[in-house]
């Protein structure tokens, strides 16, 4: 999509009656942001607890597979909530995010974090002890965790910076 057509899409979306409602009813945007932040809290805290287990820093009395079973639902299930509330926030002010390089960066980081989470999760489906079978695999698990933590930190920072960076 060219920048011009993206711009006209943003203008069209902002002019829709639904977007107008989101713009004029004052409590909707902060309420949606509140739900968004609560869902972020669930995802990031669950990812951190799983990462700390992979690193061997916390919760070592529970196996990696059991820790993953415990926290992965709280990483994946808030995602539809995040996408829905995120879509509402975009609809309320399309150019603020869609034309914003930081928003594009955030989406890229999010896809990377999702991929890394899958890289930890998928092998566990085949073999619950997968990450604990050898020293080499334990090292890979630690690398996954060490990559995941800064990614989530960056996603949160990017999310906050959307408010401060102007669209192109």
């Amino acid at each position, binding site marked *: 999509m060219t920048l011009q057509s993206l711009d006209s899409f943003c203008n069209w979306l902002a002019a829709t009656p639904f977007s107008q409602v989101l713009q004029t009813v004052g409590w909707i945007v902060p309420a949606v942001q509140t739900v968004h*932040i609560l869902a972020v*809290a669930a995802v990031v805290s669950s990812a951190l*607890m799983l990462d700390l287990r992979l690193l061997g820093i916390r919760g070592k009395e529970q196996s990696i597979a059991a820790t993953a079973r415990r926290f992965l639902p709280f990483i994946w299930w808030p995602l539809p909530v995040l996408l829905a509330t995120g879509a509402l926030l975009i609809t309320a002010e399309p150019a603020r995010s869609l034309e914003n390089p930081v928003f594009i960066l955030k989406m890229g980081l999010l896809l990377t974090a999702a991929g890394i989470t899958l890289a930890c999760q998928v092998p566990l489906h085949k073999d619950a002890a997968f990450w604990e079978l050898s020293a080499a695999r334990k090292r890979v698990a630690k690398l996954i965790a060490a990559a995941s933590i800064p990614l989530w930190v960056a996603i949160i920072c990017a999310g906050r910076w959307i408010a*401060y960076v102007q669209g192109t």
Partner: protein
Amino acid sequence: MLEQFLQGLQDTSIATAIREGESLFPWIECVHVLALTLVIGSIGIVDLRLVGLASRDRGVAQTTASVLPVTWTAFVLAAITGGLLFASNATTYGHNFYFQIKMALIALAGVNMAVYHLFLNSGADAWHTPAATPIRARIVGGVSLCLWIAIVAFGRWIGFTINTPT
């Protein structure tokens, strides 16, 4: 007295630097958001276990022990960054209704937690399953969840009721 304190806080060099700097405020906000998501997410893990909705195969004591260091570290970080953000515009935040309620709710969450730890959690080592978790502990968990959700909401509303980017 309070006015003088707020004005004095706002006039400190660090508050001035945050207020007048290009990017100091957003970066501190980033750390604040990161810290508060970890506070709420990790307290949520404990609360959901107390209520009996998650970590059902783990005891309360186990769950608390693995999570609370994360909670406290994140809380200290959230308090420091929150203090810095507050200082940058102390006279405005100090008079903001949503900020005042948010602080009151955090105090209430603290009281709720203190009451639990001082009076209600004797025998918690034996609360291995949700069925073995007494109703008083479930109530504490439920109250804590509600308070923290409200704290996030009031925190977000501060940004919409004072004149800074949202």
